[in-house]
């Protein structure tokens, strides 16, 4: 492996348009050596297009792509040494498992003996030992997925490209495969670009996440940063559940920041080190459902707001409770357990506390 300093992949102001559609706009991105980077975004935001450009199936309309220090913008797919796993797996139906995995090695003219060992090793990595002579049609979806992975990792690509590899699997299998993918990444150390539109998958799996929307990067951050400090409204509402409060005007008062919201509501937060919130500025507040809590009786609590319960959505470990908070609009609370359903029946008046210290505050 090369020095840690040199990035595995660099995209420099890459654009791609199809006729009228601009699928990717002036996108720049660096993938570090050995990291698992996830490309997350809604359907049609250009994830597959970006992956296709990295693999060489699409030529960028502008910009350049550097893989392993070499500018590959004009290099055809078969000389790029990337390993792609397709959404539909795209296994060769006329070959058995062994020949599928061995294909890339055959193209590299590897000696028979060495090849058998490499294929065996790859199949072991994806836990498919013993299925080498199976036909593709005789495999389950999860097994096909593993063959596709083995086929891509056996050539030791400069970057592993995974296009929503888990989306065709059922929920349980998907969870198990996520764990396995992470383990596989740890063992192989391959630089990996993982595409998904499932945010839970992205949060659970990635070293860093790139959030995309309409062909542009919205934010690049670790899962933790992304959830706690989304860079803008799109990221805030795309990652996890979040309540968006009406626009507020803010000012400082001692150690507090005070937010005045239309309808005479005043909310307070401790002053924080965020240069974007200045006095008198219009701000947008985003609060996660877990930062809204029920207040029993007249117990004092910060930012108490009275509201009416409109719905309960029981989720097992917790309940999502919807309330109508008057000028603050409809809000969602996340309450542990299911007792809240009986304690605060639909239609009843309750008091909630809004913890703004953990809220996302964005300048308007």
């Amino acid at each position: 492996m090369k020095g840690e300093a040199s990035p595995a992949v660099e995209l420099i102001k890459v654009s791609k348009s199809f006729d009228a559609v601009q699928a990717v706009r002036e996108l720049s991105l660096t993938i570090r050596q050995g990291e698992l980077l996830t490309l997350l975004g809604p359907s049609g935001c250009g994830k597959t297009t970006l992956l296709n450009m990295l693999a060489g199936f699409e030529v960028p309309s502008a910009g350049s792509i550097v893989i392993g220090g070499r500018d590959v913008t004009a290099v055809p797919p078969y000389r790029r040494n990337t390993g792609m796993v397709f959404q539909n797996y795209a296994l060769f139906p006329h070959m058995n498992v062994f020949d599928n995995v061995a294909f890339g090695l055959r193209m590299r003219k590897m000696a028979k003996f060495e090849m058998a060992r490499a294929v065996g090793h790859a199949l072991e990595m994806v836990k498919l030992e013993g299925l080498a002579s199976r036909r593709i049609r005789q495999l389950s979806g999860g097994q096909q997925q593993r063959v596709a992975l083995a086929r891509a990792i056996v050539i030791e690509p400069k970057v592993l490209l995974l296009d929503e590899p888990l989306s065709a699997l059922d929920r349980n299998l998907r969870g198990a495969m996520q764990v396995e993918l992470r383990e596989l990444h740890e063992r192989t150390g391959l630089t990996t670009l993982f595409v998904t539109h499932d945010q839970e998958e992205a949060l659970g799996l990635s070293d860093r996440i790139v959030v995309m929307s309409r062909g542009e990067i919205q934010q690049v951050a670790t899962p933790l940063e992304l959830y706690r400090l989304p860079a803008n409204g799109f990221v805030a509402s795309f990652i996890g559940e979040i309540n968006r409060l009406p626009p507020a005007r803010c000012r400082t008062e001692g150690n507090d920041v005070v937010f005045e919201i239309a309808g005479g509501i005043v909310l307070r937060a401790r002053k924080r080190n965020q240069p974007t919130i200045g006095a008198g500025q219009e701000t947008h507040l985003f609060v996660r459902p877990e930062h809204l809590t029920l207040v029993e009786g007249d117990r004092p609590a910060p930012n108490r707001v009275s509201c009416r319960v409109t719905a309960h959505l029981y989720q097992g470990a917790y309940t999502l409770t919807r309330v109508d908070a008057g000028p603050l609009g409809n809000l969602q609370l996340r309450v542990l357990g299911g007792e809240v359903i009986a304690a605060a029946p639909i239609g009843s008046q309750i008091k909630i506390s809004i913890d703004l210290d953990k809220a996302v505050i964005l300048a308007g």
Partner: protein
Amino acid sequence: MIASARWRAAPARPRPFFLWLFLPSLAAALLFVAALCEVAQYAFRVFTPGSLEAGGFTLENFARLARPIYLSVLADTLLISLATALFTLLLSYPVAYAMVRAKSDFVRSLIMLLAVTPLFTGEIVRTYAWILVLGSNGFVNSVLKAAGLVNAPLTMLYTRFGVIVALVQFSMPVMIIILAAALAHVDRNCERAAANLGAGPAKVFRHVTLPLTLPGIVSGTVVIFAWTMSAFSTPQLVGGGKVLMISNLVYLQGLSSFNFPFAAVLSLLALAVAIGALGSMRPFVSRLERKAAVN
């Protein structure tokens, strides 16, 4: 294994419309079998020269097949059919490929139109067109002469070569449609996967596209082979009596010599060869597929 339940055959379900949908083809098949029986019974009867009536039971007609003159017609027919099928395949594959893979809809439609239009001109019209093109003063010879490539006109009309050329053109639309269907079924991502794994365009074709279209290639070739086996007007007109295929011999025997019994034997022979070719297709395809898979 998890998978086994999925690929085991599904239990038989009642098919409510099956019988009704099946009836018309059943009626057609019965009619065809009746006609075939009528032909077949002639094959076992004595030919009386000068009479349209066939006589009593005999196997003499089949023995007659062994005569060198008839064997050579059979050999010619097989050769012409095989050559036609192979050349049709070689010429049609690139056309079908270009059609299916054309980037613009306009180009695709244009190729489709050019490829299929010949189907709508009659066989006789097209055959006459070939006579004009291939004749001593025809288009090809005029061009060759004007270009100074030949002194005397080439003989193409009334030769096997001419017959094969006309038959190939006649067969191409059908072959193109069969191959296009096969090509359209190839998952583009499979080709991309191969390229991604290091296969250049030629290798992608050799290791992925070609094996995956193999069933289409074999069925197209067999269909054209069987179809050409029964060609009549093209060898009749372009061959001008100098190139005899089985159908032409049947015509001669049945309608010139009025030897219905021997004509019947020849017809049955042609049918048997065609059915044999179609029947051997399935096992042949699966064997080829298995072979292609290993490399």
